[in-house]
């Protein structure tokens, strides 16, 4: 497929993401923050699509925007918003925060200035029409698949979390 107006969509999606991210930390109302986060996550899914990774984009939408954020909203809506809006911020972590932000910013600048020499010239792109199949082959294929074990370990971790949640929520099992 021929990409159309690539720079336009890149800047549009990036701007949406950055504005969304800024709104997440500046809004006092937690529901507004959550909705800004959803916008940012959806824009990120769009960026994944532009990077020829439709599977990651689909998972981003179905898991983060559709699944996790619904549960976020679910919880936030049951808290009294009136009180949280009036509440002053009480954690004193701005020093650590500035250090972390500076480190991240330094990393970005380094990548921006030296990016060409840091990364190989030609990047590996999977054909868009076969993306899901390629990801699956990379994970599970008999010959070239190498992440089967790690994938199963990750699913075991999730299973432990599910059982833990049930045990904590139920008084009598």
């Amino acid at each position, binding site marked *: 497929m021929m990409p159309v107006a690539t720079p336009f969509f890149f800047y549009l999606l990036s701007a949406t993401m950055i504005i969304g991210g800024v709104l997440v930390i500046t809004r006092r109302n937690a529901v507004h923050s959550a909705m800004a986060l959803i916008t940012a996550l959806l824009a990120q899914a769009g960026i994944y699509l532009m990077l020829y990774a*439709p599977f990651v984009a689909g998972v981003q*939408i179905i898991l983060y925007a559709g699944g996790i954020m619904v549960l976020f909203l679910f919880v936030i*809506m049951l808290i009294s918003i009136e009180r949280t809006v009036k509440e002053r911020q009480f954690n004193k972590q701005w020093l650590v925060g500035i250090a972390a932000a500076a480190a991240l910013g330094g990393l970005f600048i380094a990548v921006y200035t030296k990016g060409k020499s840091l990364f190989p010239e030609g990047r590996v792109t999977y054909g868009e029409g076969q993306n899901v199949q390629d990801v699956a082959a990379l994970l599970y294929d008999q010959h070239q698949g190498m992440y089967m074990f790690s994938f199963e370990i990750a699913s075991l971790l999730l299973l432990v979390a599910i059982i833990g949640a049930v045990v904590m929520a139920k008084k009598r099992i």
Partner: protein
Amino acid sequence: MREVIDYIQSYLSSDQTPGAAGNWFWATVYVLLVFVGLSIAVIAMNWLERKILAHMQVRLGPMRVGPHGLLQPIADALKLLLKEDIMPAEADAVVFWIAPFIVVLAAFTVFVVVPFGPTHAITDMNIGILFMLGVSSLSVLGIVTAGWASNSHYPLIGALRSSAQMVSYEVAMGLAVVSVIVMTSLNAEGTGTLSMIGIVQAQQAQHTWFVFKFFPLGLVGFFIFAVAMVAETNRAPFDLPEAESELTAGFHTEYSGFRWSLFFLAEYSAMIAVSSIAVTLWLGGWLRPFPDALSGPTWDLVFSLFPGITFLLLGAMCFYNAARMPKHPLFRIQTIGLAGFGAVLALIGLVLFAPPVRDRVGDIFWFAAKVAAFMYLYIWYRGTFPRYRFDQLMKVGWKILLPTGLVLLILTAGAGFLEEPVKEWLKRVL
């Protein structure tokens, strides 16, 4: 000018969807066509639902606006647009504004990948079905925010119920869908597909609709999906978020006028969207019935006459009812109107008989006919089933559909794995 025309014509010779061919002109045309078609379908559903429900309850339904109430949807739309748009005083204005648009966007965006035919789709994505499920699950965000932003008790409870219901049934739905994706991988290469067009082509290649595959496994998966999709769209008998006797109107209690009509539009287009998922995954999408048993050019011709015959029958029905109209002068305009409508339908039917048109609309017709059957089922459910209680609903979702879905997935994978060896073994034994 010449290049523009060449660019537009260059797509006509390709056998791809406009999205896959990367032709922005035809992609825009297809988007507009789908949007217009969908709006017409929603308007038609509005009239049909009231009419069919009324006939099921031995009433007449809308009869006043236009012949047999045919203009009722237009009157309704006008009423909704002219109605005062009320926002509760303590509501969260921004979120209250955005919520209906989220629902509408989610409901319409999924039609990007709906395959009306091998080339009649806006685009074909490699992640087709994943995209459809993901984007349609975004509508729950709109419902939750609508309920919360109204700052009122009934909408909040309705929104909580709705989101709990939709999140629960998504799990069972996903398992049923995965069992179909396992079925698509039963080919020589052993590679499945998530693409909506690819799924239908897999059914074509395997010479069976997936609802009949590994009988009764495909049927069970289809049943799980058919139940879950009614719950996903918050329709009767799972319309607890809008249970009138308990919650007034659920999450859209505080909405009125234009914004309420957006919820209405989204509900119906979401119904069409999930029905088209079911048709694509289990009922062979655009494939006509009996492509193998009744094959050959003669049967192809017979089946290609169906769209025209359908419209002619609809036109004949209009003429019949126009003839049955009371002969009083007050009914003259209605009679002429109904006969005119019948004439338009019959004319469309005649156009559909023309060979170049006939060959191109066949797949769209079969897809639309299968979706229409689902839409009728939706109305039928609403007319017959009593509403579930909320704990019963959760029980059905988590304790019946989910375990069945898990077992179904394992059995489907096992059947797919054993199919070839068993066939070989049978060949040797017999």
